[in-house]
């Protein structure tokens, strides 16, 4: 018998038991739904972290600390030679200017920008109101979402990028009109005596306004200056104090992205703790993979349950159609074809279940994606991404699972003795 004829007959007999077919398919559909969603969440999640990392870090950049932060085992011993950072939980050591110059000499390193994070007193604009401000260093290859202005290339040393929240606070009417205007930052020189405090006003031209983005961490509240401008402020504030020249962490720019790993190796050999953008991404992705794995596990459980459903349904189908099978065999239908008939029925069940389940998952995704994005406030980012190949693999896989679970009932049908099957009394 031809495969086409067998598969038409298989589909026809399924159609005759619509409710049963549908219910059995739905069992496998639950599995398809869960698996499709977990795959979509995995793809979406990884794409999301990719975006987060590219919005906040530079793939050519490494983050370097003196040593890997240690979980604190009781109070740390004081030492004169090295200054240390100690918080309640972690203890580490600062990088000093010697370290910075050593790192600069490594082959492939373009520049080293320690996190100056200058602690200024306030920022003010046309309105004259004074506001606290956190400052950070601008990196040209970190993606910023801009509401106004543009940052083609690097930031000049007298330029600043404001966040949207500061626009009205500082007294500008809107984002666009703030661009090109001047803001003042006042910083204290920490080493000046208490009796005669010294402070200075620094002027910056607003280059652009960064808008609130679901992806960027720092663009939300920090104002960005060029590396040199940060250093100037830092030097003014801290020079002459004990902590001058001590940094918890520094960014190291490599000449190209593929150089980062060799530089990381060199740094590690020198005793520093270095992480590439890929490492940071990897940590987040591990998290997503674990979550995806759990969801996949649930899906697999649903599929395993549905296997028994299919076996049961197909056994009943064989018992119901003993006479039909007997007649087919009497008419010369081969065992192999009888078996195939029932395996194809199972395949149809798997296909319907897989298609319905993953179809519902896609619809679910379409409905839920905007809701999630809104709830998490991540803008246009979609957390569920359905890849056609993944859906195809899920459906094909479930068809195979269904065929495999149809093997036992199909064998029973194939082995049926036509004489027994055709006995009427």
């Amino acid at each position, binding site marked *: *018998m*031809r495969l*086409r*004829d067998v598969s038409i*007959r298989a589909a*026809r*007999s399924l159609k*005759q038991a619509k409710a049963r077919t549908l219910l059995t398919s739905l069992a496998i559909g639950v599995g398809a739904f869960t698996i499709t969603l977990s795959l979509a969440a995995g793809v979406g999640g990884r794409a999301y972290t990719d975006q987060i990392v590219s919005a906040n870090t530079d793939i050519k950049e490494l983050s370097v600390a003196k040593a890997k932060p240690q979980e604190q085992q009781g109070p740390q011993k004081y030492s004169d030679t090295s200054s240390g950072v100690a918080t309640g939980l972690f203890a580490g050591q600062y990088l000093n200017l010697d370290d910075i110059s050593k790192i600069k000499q490594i082959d492939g390193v373009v520049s080293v920008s320690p996190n100056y994070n200058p602690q200024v007193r306030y920022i003010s604009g046309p309105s004259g109101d004074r506001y606290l401000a956190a400052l950070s260093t601008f990196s040209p290859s970190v993606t910023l979402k801009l509401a106004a202005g543009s940052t083609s290339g690097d930031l000049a040393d007298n330029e600043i990028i404001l966040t949207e929240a500061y626009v009205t606070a500082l007294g500008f009417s809107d984002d666009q009109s703030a661009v090109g205007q001047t803001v003042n930052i006042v910083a204290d020189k920490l080493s000046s005596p208490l009796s005669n405090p010294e402070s200075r006003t620094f002027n910056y031209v607003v280059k652009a306004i960064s808008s609130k983005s679901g992806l960027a961490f720092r663009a939300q509240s920090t104002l960005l200056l060029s590396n040199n401008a940060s250093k100037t402020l830092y030097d003014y504030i801290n020079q002459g104090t004990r902590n001058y020249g001590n940094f918890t962490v520094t960014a190291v720019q490599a000449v190209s992205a593929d150089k980062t790993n060799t530089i990381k190796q060199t740094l590690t050999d020198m005793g520093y703790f270095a992480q590439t953008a890929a490492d940071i991404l990897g940590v987040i992705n591990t998290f997503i993979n674990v979550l995806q794995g759990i969801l996949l596990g649930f899906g697999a459980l649903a599929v395993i349950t549905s296997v028994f459903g299919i076996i049961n349904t197909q056994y009943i189908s064989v018992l119901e159609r003993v*006479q*039909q099978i*007997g*007649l*087919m*065999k*009497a*008419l*010369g*239908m*081969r*065992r192999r*074809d009888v078996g195939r008939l029932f395996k194809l029925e199972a395949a149809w069940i798997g296909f319907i279940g897989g298609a319905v389940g993953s179809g519902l998952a896609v619809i679910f995704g379409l409905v839920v994606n905007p809701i999630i994005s809104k709830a998490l406030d991540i803008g246009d980012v979609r957390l569920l991404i359905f890849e056609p190949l993944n859906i195809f693999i899920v459906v094909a896989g479930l068809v195979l699972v269904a065929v495999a679970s149809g093997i036992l009932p199909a064998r029973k049908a194939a082995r049926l003795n*036509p*004489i027994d099957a*055709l006995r*009427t009394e």
Partner: protein
Amino acid sequence: MIEVKNITKTYGKKDNVFRVLNDVNFTIPDGASVAILGKSGSGKSTLMHVMSGLDRPDKGQVVIDGQDILSMNQKDIDKFRSTAMSFIFQSFFVQANESCYDNVSLPLEIANVPTKKRRSKIEAALKAVELIDKKKSRARELSGGQKQRLAVARAIVNQPKILFADEPTGNLDSVTGGVVEDLLFDYNKRNKVTLIVVTHDEDLANRCDIQIRIKDGEIESVKGKK
């Protein structure tokens, strides 16, 4: 020509051996109509099963046109049955959920007849049993007599050489039964197809060329017009 030689078939084991067929021998010429007569339990159905290769006897041969079908492997027997034999049963065994067309199509599908050639054959068979107007009706909508006529259409669609009929009128009243009988004998005479009817109905048996009587697994008598 069908030669049945020394067929012996037993059921059961050791102390409980039951001999259904005991050294059965006879010959059927091509195109003949043959009645296998006997009471229930006489072994007549088993004889039909053995002759069609559905059942395997302990001993003996069934030689059809010079070939012993019992020595063939399962695949070849199946192929032989799908191309050269067909069956009509007392309880019709038509598929109630399928259309008349699909019911008749089944033997052609099993025999791997190309899709293009099926339609004309199916329509010819349905015409022969006067069910062409019911082509698209489901078999469950048919009356008993119509169902058996549908079974006849299914049996003749692939132009078999041998037609087995197991109590073909057993579930029908005398009028509809008569119509089915006429169809079978008409087809037998016109196409020189060997017709083997298993029955306990004397009137039906008397319409056949040869009557083979079976009693307790042995041939009681073979009578023939020829």
